[in-house]
């Protein structure tokens, strides 16, 4: 990954104003900005790595953790906020033990907060693996996560069975 970024940096000019486009390209390719990647960019542009980090954390679009296998996006736009989108986000956070913008240590889930997904009539909304979940409630949060648990258990069982039959 770092080698790839190194090669990418060779093609971009060493100018301060290129910082954000470079970060965007790295995130596009690798889905997130790792500390080492930010250090490489700082070295390339001749600015301190703290400065790169400061700029990157200012913008919502950059993420600092690799996305999980299942991506959960909780809408906190106006309509969702009014009907308790923050409660839904907090529910996901508590159940998974991570904060928004983070990924669980097993890389299964990541939570993100988004501003609006464009279906305010269904508020509060969460987008789980690109499927819009309408009218969210704490019980639905539990249901979704339970569904993933069952799916994972079934997959493991099938895997074991297929290994046993071989």
């Amino acid at each position, binding site marked *: 990954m770092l080698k790839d970024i190194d090669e990418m940096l060779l093609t971009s000019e060493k100018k301060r104003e290129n910082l954000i486009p470079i970060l965007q390209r790295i995130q596009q390719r690798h889905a997130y900005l790792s500390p080492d990647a930010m250090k490489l960019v700082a070295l390339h542009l001749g600015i*301190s*790595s*703290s400065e*790169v*980090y*400061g700029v990157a*954390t*200012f913008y919502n679009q950059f993420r600092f953790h690799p996305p999980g296998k299942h991506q959960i996006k909780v809408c906190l736009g106006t309509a969702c906020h009014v009907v308790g989108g923050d409660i839904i986000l907090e529910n996901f956070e508590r159940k998974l033990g991570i904060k928004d913008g983070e990924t669980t240590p097993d890389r299964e889930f990541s939570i993100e907060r988004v501003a609006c997904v464009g279906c305010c009539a269904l508020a509060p909304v969460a987008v789980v693996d690109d499927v819009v979940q309408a009218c969210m409630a704490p019980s639905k949060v539990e249901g979704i996560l339970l569904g993933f648990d069952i799916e994972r258990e079934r997959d493991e069982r099938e895997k074991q069975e297929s290994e046993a039959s071989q």
Partner: protein
Amino acid sequence: MIKVNVDGRAIEVGEGQSLLAVCLQQGIFIPHLCFLEGMPESPASCRLCFVDIQGEPAPVASCKVPPWDGMVVRTDTERVRRLQKSALRLLLSVHHVDCRNCPSNKKCVLQDLAKFLGVPLKSKKLEHLQREIGVELDHPLFQFVPERCVLCEKCIAVCRQHNDFSLLTFAKRGFNTVVTCFEKDPDRLPCSDCRACVEICPVSAIFLKNEAAEACLDQPPPFPDSP
């Protein structure tokens, strides 16, 4: 020489300095927080150093104004004080007022400014602090308390002066803004003999880790939180 009249006092000043710097040198106090002598450009972020200049429609931040010949300045008009009071109230609204346990107690810029402007340190209107983020700076030597920080940017500026580039930076934004250091490796940090950021911090938001406990023990006898 440029002749300036401040609050009825005629002063003569040289070029290349801001009105705020000139006034402070002459012993004329203008509330300020983010201004730092020797900084190439003032960030003008604290919004405290307002003055009224004859001919200007509204008060201006004196750290951004160079003096000109024949300038007539008032530092204590009602609208200047009103702006300064609201700026200080906004700063205090995100400041965790816990003077008793703060190493800056009695030598704190915020306490002095609050006394000078007649603003209570604790506002009754504000029920809870918007800025509650816990300790964040992961640095081998320093500790940072965001609830104390007034985001004056002085630590970042002195760090830049000492190292050519700044190891400290603002991260995130809005209420969540914190001062942080990205480099975590103690061997690559030139901080062991440099205490510039700790010394410059007006509110003890950034301090030495091992001194943290001592600083609290050294406290003078309990002091009421608000005047």
